[in-house]
């Protein structure tokens, strides 16, 4: 089932044009922690298209992704005080909540509902981040991309597929048609190399 429609994509991207700066989002989360529902609305407006995309990608089911998205923002409402701006950027914190919820939902389904291979990365232009952070963000993304390029193609493809689809080692091994041990060693070697590259 292909849930992503081009119209929705365009709407989603245009909705991200006004993406707030990191500090604006961090401040909004602070207000959410104080019980300010208008601030939650702002966080939702600015991040829901991205998080919905992330959930859809993992769950590949619109109604399930909507349920998880609701759960994500209710969690944000209740746990905003746990957000530590010294430790994570707001979008990283939000993406982590969304991915964790979506992956947990995926795991709760009995057997893999999705066995067809999925291309690792849809080639779509990035939503525009706030001007203040564009440079910093671009550098981070470039470094990640550069480091991924340095991995063996299969290792980086496995890492991307794991992160974006939330697939287990077993599912990835099946999809790429290699033994489980091979998949584990691809990903672990890839992660170690990636860490060394990013920290280098």
């Amino acid at each position, binding site marked *: 089932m292909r849930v992503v429609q081009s119209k929705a994509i365009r709407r989603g991207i245009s909705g991200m044009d006004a993406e707030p700066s990191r500090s604006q989002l961090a401040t909004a989360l602070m207000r959410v922690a104080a019980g300010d529902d208008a601030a939650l609305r702002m966080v939702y407006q600015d991040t829901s298209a991205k998080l919905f995309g992330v959930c859809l990608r993992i769950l590949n089911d619109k109604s399930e992704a909507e349920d998880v998205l609701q759960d994500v923002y209710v969690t944000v409402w209740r746990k905003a*005080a746990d957000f530590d701006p010294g430790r994570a950027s707001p979008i*990283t914190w939000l993406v*982590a909540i969304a991915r964790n919820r979506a992956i947990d939902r995926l795991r709760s389904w009995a057997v893999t509902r999705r066995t067809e291979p999925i291309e690792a990365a849809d080639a779509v232009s990035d939503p525009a981040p706030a001007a203040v952070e564009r440079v910093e963000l671009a550098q981070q993304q470039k470094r990640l991309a550069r480091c991924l390029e340095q991995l063996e193609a299969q290792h980086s493809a496995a890492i991307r597929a794991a992160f974006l689809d939330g697939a287990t080692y077993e599912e990835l091994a099946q999809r790429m048609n290699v033994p489980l041990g091979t998949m584990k060693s691809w990903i672990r070697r890839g992660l170690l190399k990636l*860490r060394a590259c990013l920290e280098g």
Partner: protein
Amino acid sequence: MSANGTIDSPDDGNLIAAEYVLGVLSAAERREVERRLARERALASEVALWEERLTGLTDAVVPVAPPDAVWSRIERAIGTGPRAPSVWQSLTFWRSFAIASATLAAASIAALVYVGLVPGARVPLMATLSGSAGQPNFVASVTATGNTLVIVPAALLTNDPRAYELWLIPTGETRPRSLGLIQPGQPIRLDIPSDLAGRVTPDATLAVSLEPPGGSPTGLPTGPVVAAGKLTNM
């Protein structure tokens, strides 16, 4: 521990955080990591690091605007949640508050309101600054003139070596303004800078964050918010 050697084999132990963040673990393995995260700070830091490293991968995902109905459902869900903002108007709150924190909290408020840390002044604005679980951590009051604020700890916070900094987020603004450092263990009286006095109004937010000794080096909160609440008219 797990049969397939994903967790706890010594060679891969340092990758369990990465495997958790990547999403390759089974449901049982994820729960195991989450149990450890609650008590192992090093592991939690490692997970945060990997989240920061890998989150850029989601830029390849197409954003999709969710249907409007999702927001309506969220509004309904939080409307009935445990975090009712109008806590000051709740008799249940006051009852449970007085009973549960009879010693420190009630004494703090009594001292604040009646004994005269704010001598001769009416107390027009108050805020309860709650933590993530909704428990009141500080109670703050502003004098009628709007240029003095008293903040009293209402709960015993865990002993954190970091400094506690108080912030004002004026109504309709997004940038927090520092009101100064406070003490988790004793009432503190702060002078509100004259340029901010007019912005200490009902619905403005007070928040307390943990900062390096001496306070935030950037002028904006850099550490976790341990308590926050809105000012309301008494």
